[in-house]
């Protein structure tokens, strides 16, 4: 079973005016599994991204009580994210290519797990960790499959990435000719630039981010799938955050998520089938995948705010939810300096334009009245891009452990990644 090119685009919801999702409440997320979360691959094949993907997939199946022969769909956001393993020599099969080392396709998982009954497979969304959940939901809704594994592999090899290749040359080609001569070449530069504009517009400042990031790490330490739970460090303090080195001011080191080598796998199925599984179903209420272009070379704060508004409008339209009906909110925080656009736009807990950083000064702990990003997000768990979704499932199933929020947890919205390219999921404890 190999990916049929072009299928993914037909399964995304990416427009205004689509109304309530036609399969609302008819698709369910049941379980997920996760692998160990390492800082980097140690070149032990038992710790490879492929091996970790199989660990995560098996756990997801075990949690739900599903056999291999019952799986008829596999979707992966295969990567790669960082550098490839090549030009170093590969290993014996199944590690005789990048697939299984720096990325993992649906096809690799199907072959190596011995999944014999797969009707629908897709690996088109190379970095689309938000998109694949929506793609699988739509595929199930349309009957392309009924029991689907959704894989989030995220590899990280030794060394700093993006230091070689075009970044090490004396010339700039392609799109780089318009940005690289001036040094527009750090991760997060565009969001640092936008955050500066946001601060000027709304009279806020970078120091106000400290309680938000500290709370993300606190939540992350309570999330066993995450890096900081598996590799405990001293808790991050406000003082640590404020003393953190700049990467591209006003983006400091602690505003960036930590790259990790790990895999997470979700199990989605039809609402009918989910009723017979070991865990209570969490119903999918909507999904959206939105991509926007900036007018100029980079996204301005104004544009990112506008993109946020469109994300919110489409998610509320498709899910039928209103801002006051969203209990759990897990927007993306891979760089914390863009999360405010989501909070401002979705209006969660009454936040209005420009109020996000003020909101961070309140009680956003999971025990408190405004448990924002109860997952710990990417910042608090490492860059798997998965915690924001697993937390929605756990909170609605009532099994988030010490992270279980004290407020009502019957609906949830999560999305990743950045404001100009973000895919969203809405979940409900009940199908309607």
């Amino acid at each position, binding site marked *: 079973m190999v990916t049929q090119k072009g299928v993914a685009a037909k399964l995304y919801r990416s427009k205004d005016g689509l109304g309530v999702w036609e399969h609302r409440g008819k698709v369910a997320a049941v379980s997920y599994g996760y692998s160990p979360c390492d800082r980097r691959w140690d070149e032990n094949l038992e710790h490879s991204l492929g091996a970790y993907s199989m660990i995560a997939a098996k756990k997801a199946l075990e949690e739900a009580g599903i056999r291999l022969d019952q799986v008829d769909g596999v979707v992966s956001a295969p990567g790669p994210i960082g550098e490839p393993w090549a030009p170093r020599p590969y290993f014996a099969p199944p590690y005789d290519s990048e697939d299984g080392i720096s990325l993992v396709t649906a096809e690799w998982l199907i072959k190596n797990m011995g999944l014999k009954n797969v009707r629908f497979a897709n690996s088109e969304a190379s970095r689309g960790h938000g998109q694949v959940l929506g793609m699988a939901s739509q595929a199930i809704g349309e009957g392309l499959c009924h029991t689907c594994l959704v894989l989030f592999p995220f590899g990280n090899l030794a060394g700093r990435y993006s230091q070689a290749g075009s*970044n090490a040359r004396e010339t700039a080609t392609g799109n780089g000719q318009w940005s690289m*001569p001036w040094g527009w070449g750090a991760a997060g530069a565009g969001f640092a630039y936008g955050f500066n504009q946001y601060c000027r517009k709304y009279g806020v400042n970078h120091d106000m981010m400290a309680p938000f990031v500290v709370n993300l790490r606190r939540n992350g330490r309570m999330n066993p799938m995450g890096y900081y739970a598996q590799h405990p460090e001293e808790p991050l303090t406000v003082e640590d955050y404020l003393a953190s080195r*700049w990467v591209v001011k006003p983006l400091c080191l602690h505003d960036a998520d930590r790259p990790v080598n790990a895999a997470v796998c979700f199990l989605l199925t039809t609402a009918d089938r989910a009723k017979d599984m070991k865990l209570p179903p969490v119903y999918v209420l909507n999904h959206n995948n939105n991509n926007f272009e900036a007018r100029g070379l980079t996204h301005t704060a104004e544009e990112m705010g506008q993109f946020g508004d469109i994300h919110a409008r489409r998610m509320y339209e498709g899910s039928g939810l209103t801002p006051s009906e969203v209990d759990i909110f897990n927007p993306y925080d891979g760089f914390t300096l863009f999360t405010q656009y989501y909070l401002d736009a979705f209006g969660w807990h009454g936040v209005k334009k420009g109020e996000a950083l003020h909101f961070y000064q309140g009680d956003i702990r999971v025990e408190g009245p405004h448990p924002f990003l109860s997952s710990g997000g990417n910042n608090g768990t490492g860059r798997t891009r998965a915690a924001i979704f697993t937390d929605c499932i756990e909170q609605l199933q009532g099994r988030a452990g010490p992270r279980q929020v004290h407020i009502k947890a019957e609906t949830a919205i999560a999305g990743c990644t950045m404001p100009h390219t973000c895919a969203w999921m809405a979940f409900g404890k009940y199908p309607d």
Partner: protein
Amino acid sequence: MPKQSPVPDKLSKPFWDACNEGKLVMLTCTACNLMQYPPEATCRKCNSAEKLVWKEVSGWGKIHGYCTMYDCRIRLLQAEQPFNLASIALEEDPGVLMYANLPGTPVDEVPVGATVKVEFVTTPGNGQKVPEWRVTEPRWKAAKKAARPAARKR
């Protein structure tokens, strides 16, 4: 700063050739009056390729925003860290943003909204000139100075 040298391609060659002549040009759709930077093969708005022409612009602009680079991935610039990384909104079309390092402006003391004037600097890789921007007095003041008659001798 030792900037990477742009390597012109078919679409960008007129822009970079103009830079080497000390001119700033923008690919402009004459139907939509829309400037495109970076240039694209067709107009973003009307999708026309035929209506796109290169137009010289004044070289005046304003600082739209900035950040300060401390950990640049581009090797050639790593010795220059930290440095300013600003965007410039063109006078003729403020929707067009161009990058700048703002020579002469202290690091992290960028006056957002200030007037800037283009200049062209030679890059070491292949000698290609690239636009750079320097903070200057507002254009009306510069024009006033230029128009001021010589003082009468007494």
